[in-house]
């Protein structure tokens, strides 16, 4: 037997072992906002079965995802997650997760809930969110790091001006402290949705004018480059 065959055999043995041994593990999920000036609304952290998901790139957002991405409301997603017996930590930061701040969610996964998903809206945006979609939780004890990108739910035009957070309401919700951090009087960047499926967010444009201009977003502070979050997962058995 050649060595490559042997290692293939060993690998399949390891994989088979993993499948058999899938079991409840204690998981600590530390989430850090890496951005200079973007706020995360209350986070939803869930462990669920691999066949479920909160969102999928290239597919239309669910109404529950839309409510989260446009207004920061995770109650719909939380209800949906409970319905599929997911392990859930809702709002671990107790409100907004400020730029560069860190929060931690801790739970014990049920046997079959081996996929980790995380979402929260990004402020100020129209329907931007930070997301982790079905990351396989290692069954082996250890510390693992994942970096998250910013997505666009594809449900609202990115006009970048003050508005509402209800699903379908145009404009961006501006809860405190955002109301004092963004501009006003913007004419609106765009009125069209270029891609109605969930996609990588094109980023904020903003402008340099706090009183008028095209956008209410500050271009030197409230932009980002991916990744926008660092997730450190510590698995113990």
């Amino acid at each position: 037997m050649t060595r490559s065959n042997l290692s293939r055999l060993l690998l399949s043995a390891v994989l088979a072992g993993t499948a058999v041994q899938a079991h409840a593990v204690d998981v600590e999920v530390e989430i850090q906002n890496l951005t200079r000036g973007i706020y995360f609304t209350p986070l939803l952290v869930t462990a669920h079965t691999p066949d479920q998901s909160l969102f999928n790139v290239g597919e239309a957002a669910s109404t529950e995802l839309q409510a989260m991405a446009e207004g920061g409301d995770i109650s719909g997603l939380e209800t949906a997650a409970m319905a599929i017996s997911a392990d859930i930590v809702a709002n671990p930061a107790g409100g907004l997760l400020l730029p560069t701040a860190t929060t931690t969610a801790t739970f014990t996964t049920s046997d079959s809930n081996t996929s980790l998903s995380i979402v929260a809206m990004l402020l100020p945006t129209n329907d931007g969110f930070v997301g982790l979609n079905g990351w396989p939780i290692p069954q082996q004890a250890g510390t693992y790091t994942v970096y998250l990108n910013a997505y666009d739910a594809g449900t609202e035009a990115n006009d970048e001006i003050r508005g509402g957070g209800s699903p379908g309401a145009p404009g961006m919700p501006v809860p405190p402290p955002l109301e004092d951090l963004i501009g006003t009087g913007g004419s609106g960047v765009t009125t069209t949705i270029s891609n109605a499926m969930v996609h990588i967010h094109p980023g904020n444009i903003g402008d340099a004018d706090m009183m008028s201009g095209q956008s209410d977003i500050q271009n030197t502070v409230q932009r980002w480059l991916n990744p926008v979050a660092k997730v450190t997962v510590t698995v113990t058995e």
Partner: protein
Amino acid sequence: MKLSMLRNVVIVGIGTALLAACDHNDNNRNMPEPEPEPVMLTYEVTIENISAAQPLSPVAVLLHSDQTLWQVGESASEALEVLAEGGDNSDMLAVDGTLATESGSAPVGPGSNESYQLTVSDEQSAYLSVVTMLVNTNDAFTGITNKALSDLAVNDSMTMMLPVYDAGTEANSEAAGTIPGPADGGEGFNAERDDADTVSYHPGVVSSQDTLPDSVLMAEHRFDNPVARLIITRVE
């Protein structure tokens, strides 16, 4: 004979010699064991600038004891501020706890790379930090800090793609006179802190061709993550 086979023979030869030495010392069991000679570990660090138009200031490369030189969410040290605002790496290279340091001789331009060699003994647990400024910015820098090297065997190497950090010590105004690089030729370090005073990932520069009319930066000065590639090889 292949080199690898030759090495095996040499190692077997040394093993035999050691066994022989042990036999010889059978009558001297109470003699203290001689201290093993420290083994020297040499690392080669290569940084490649993969930006469009952001020269990297003379690179600071440090092997040091277990310590982070910056952390997202924490305030920048003054040594980091001096480097990130003005490209001056001298304070950073002088931090406490270093085991070996190297300084780049000149800026590393876009498309260029530079390599450094640092040596420590195996009695010291070495952690690597590399840090350099994106000079056509107010206070952007890239690098890694406190990377453990103890798992690296001879000829092992690891490659990392580096993100851009914002030191948070100077507002990203992009205004004339505030950027030390060739795009402006303006001021470097200024002790005043007029930004978040927290290290974060960088939001990117805007430029006058985007939506910042007073910026001295142009489209080519914009960047995305990653901005540099780092290759660490243990060569000895």
